């Protein structure tokens, strides 16, 4: 499965969840699949989708927070896994689309083909950690995590997609923040 298809499947399952999308193709895929005010699209600040989601989940414990992250993003801010484990937000589902490359800069390899990020998460003590292969059932894994007490992390192996050419997010960043905040 390529990431675009996985994101499109997941975004169609969202009801009242708040979704923080990491920069690069993750935000673009989510935006082009189904734009919604409760999607926060990051344009820059690579690595920080997880931190933003964690901060939001802490102050809004009654709201479900989903982070769409990538392997490159998570590798840049691996320490956040320790924070998620320590803080233990029950309303937090972290989905890592692991395509083993920096897709939006041309597909250069990350190091996640040799480094198991799901084991890193489990090693940090994140309560529910699930690893799914490219043909696995992401829908049921996600629905299970939504029902469980978090924090949860789903690592989904996806293929790098050299043909990805979706348009950029064309909403002003100030509007992305404002509508998310009022959402």
């Amino acid at each position, binding site marked *: 499965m390529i990431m675009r298809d996985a994101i499109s499947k997941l975004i169609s399952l969202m009801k009242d969840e708040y979704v*923080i999308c990491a920069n690069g193709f993750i935000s673009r895929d989510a935006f082009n699949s189904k734009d919604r005010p409760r999607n*926060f699209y*990051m*344009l*820059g*600040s*690579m*690595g*920080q989708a*997880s*931190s*933003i*989601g*964690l*901060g*939001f*989940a*802490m*102050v*809004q414990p009654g*709201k479900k927070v989903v982070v769409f992250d990538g392997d490159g993003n998570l590798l840049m*801010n691996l*320490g*956040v896994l*320790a*924070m998620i484990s320590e*803080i233990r937000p029950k309303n937090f589902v972290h989905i890592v689309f692991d395509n083993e490359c920096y897709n939006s800069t041309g597909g250069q390899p990350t190091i996640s083909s040799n480094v198991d990020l799901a084991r890193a998460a489990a090693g940090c003590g994140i309560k529910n950690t699930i690893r799914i292969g490219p043909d696995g059932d992401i829908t049921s894994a996600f629905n299970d995590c939504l029902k469980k007490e978090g924090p949860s992390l789903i690592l989904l192996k996806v293929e790098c997609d050299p043909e990805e050419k979706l348009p950029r997010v064309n909403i002003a*960043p*100030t509007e*992305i*923040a*404002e509508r*998310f*905040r009022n959402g």
Partner: protein
Amino acid sequence: MDAAAFKDKLKDHGYSFFTGVPCSLLGGLIESLGEEYVPSVREDTALGLAAGAYLGGRRSCVLMQNSGLGYSLNVLTSLNMIYDIPVLMIVSFRGLGGKDAPEHLVMGKHCVELMETFKIAHKVCGKDDLDDALKAADKEISSGRPYCIFIKGDTLE
């Protein structure tokens, strides 16, 4: 100023989410915040966390040493400053006047210029300057911008 009194002032100004990475100069403030202070692993992660708390309705404050400004710049410039996500940074001023351990001297010499370069409003504070700085910060924070309070060595007791 007594660190606990400064904490009370921060709360009076509406700050209700505190995170950061410690500095010995900020130890008293962190201690007074107690469990309200969320330890972050890096300064940029702290800014990300604070941004999330802001999106969830809080007024956020990040504590750090000036050595953390380097890590912070990417988040300040490509998150806070383009999405209008405000944050109060309380930054301990190491290396002031060239008198400190060697690792603090270069950042100590240039950290104020750094804020000037990026047009981030800031004030270098001794204990008598904190009230004015918090008032100036109110204006920036209400307009969606970051504000940086540099804390000199003898400012917080």
